[in-house]
């Protein structure tokens, strides 16, 4: 009996350990390139906080009627989703679909696209569609001070009354402490 009690967990552990060994390391996500010159927020900030921004935009659009062209889910899609080599758009389940590239890597499930389309629409296309040089301030982003300021801004956005992640993808109430999501410097 005692032997069996030892063997079973050992075998299970070995199996679990073997899975990544067989498949190798999970490849780093390949993030499809966007069409526009720069995102609506600094890329680093977006990587951490896009969900907070989306929640706020969602609340404002649905409940208050404040809409944006670029700062909206269709706006994101218009910029971030391109046709693949075969001329088709990536499917919602594909790893080549922008949102999935990371979400599948980190094991996050989103259900935005059971209702929202994941195809870009001409109405939300950025007018010129040409990669423009980044705006003035972001040129300095390579310099040490700007990078430091950016890092500090990220800490600020994450600290204190930052919108709670626990709200998940579902909160409709204006996210608590939504002011932490800076909208063009408005408090």
């Amino acid at each position, binding site marked *: 009996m005692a032997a069996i009690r030892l063997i079973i967990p050992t075998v299970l552990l070995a199996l679990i350990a073997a899975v990544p060994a067989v498949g190798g390391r999970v490849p780093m996500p390949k993030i499809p390139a966007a069409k526009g010159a720069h995102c609506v*927020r600094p890329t680093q900030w977006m990587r951490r906080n896009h969900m907070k921004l989306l929640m706020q935009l969602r609340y404002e659009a649905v409940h208050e009627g404040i809409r944006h062209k670029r700062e909206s889910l269709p706006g994101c899609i218009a910029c971030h989703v391109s046709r693949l080599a075969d001329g088709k758009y990536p499917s919602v389940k594909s790893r080549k679909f922008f949102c999935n590239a990371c979400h599948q890597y980190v094991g996050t499930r989103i259900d935005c696209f059971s209702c929202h389309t994941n195809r870009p629409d001409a109405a939300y296309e950025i007018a010129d569609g040409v990669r423009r040089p980044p*705006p003035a301030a972001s040129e300095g982003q390579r310099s040490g001070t700007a990078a430091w300021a950016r890092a500090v801004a990220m800490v600020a956005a994450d600290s204190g009354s930052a919108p709670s992640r626990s709200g998940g993808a579902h909160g409709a109430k204006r996210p608590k402490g939504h002011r932490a999501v800076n909208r063009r410097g408005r408090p």
Partner: protein
Amino acid sequence: MRNSALPQIACDQDRRRFFGIAGAVALALAPGVSLIAYAQSDAPTSAAASAKTRWGLLIDTTQCKPSCTACVTACSSYNGWKNEGRPTDPQWIRKVQVSDPSTGFSRSVPVMCQHCANAPCVEVCPTGASFKRADGIVLVDRHICIGCRYCMMACPYKARSFVSENLSGQKPWAPRGKGTVEGCTLCVPRVDAGKVPACVEACAREGNGAMTFGDLNDPASPIRRALAHHPAVQLRADLMLDTGVRYEGL
């Protein structure tokens, strides 16, 4: 062991103090940073809905042709819903043929969400997904709709539909999906962009121009002037729901 624990706490306190200062610096800097970097950022295309406005529709049933379904087709194509004749298919707007059995008097009227001021669907919704915007438009926030269908039980106009199957190819401005309830939005993205609802536009273009859209609170608006001079009724006026959609000639 006790001794070694002390510096640990001191270290923690130091770390906390550092983060406190960093946070204060960040708070002072952060707005400026994003202001500079995103001065060219995306300005809203619409202002917040305001209670000063109450959007409404006036339907002149004397001008509505029984054979015309321009409003229904326009709604369907703009919002991306399809009626294939099944009882599970959504119908955000429909033409109802009404006749008086004793006199034979008949009318054809489009019926959709009446955008009530005292909407029963809003009252019964357990999560608050069914809500009324400040400007009187009654909507479903599908992000928090759990699909209980109590609003469909409560609506006196049968204005709500339930999505019973997986969808694809939705319109970017009209997201809709399985397991949630939907209905006429008064084409809220169009209204926010300063346009009239798709049905009203189609009625003016292909029909007899039987539909007038406008602000019920504005005494100078065409809808308000028409309502001031012509008799118009609310459907199920006995329920005192104060509907935003009014019918003339019924």
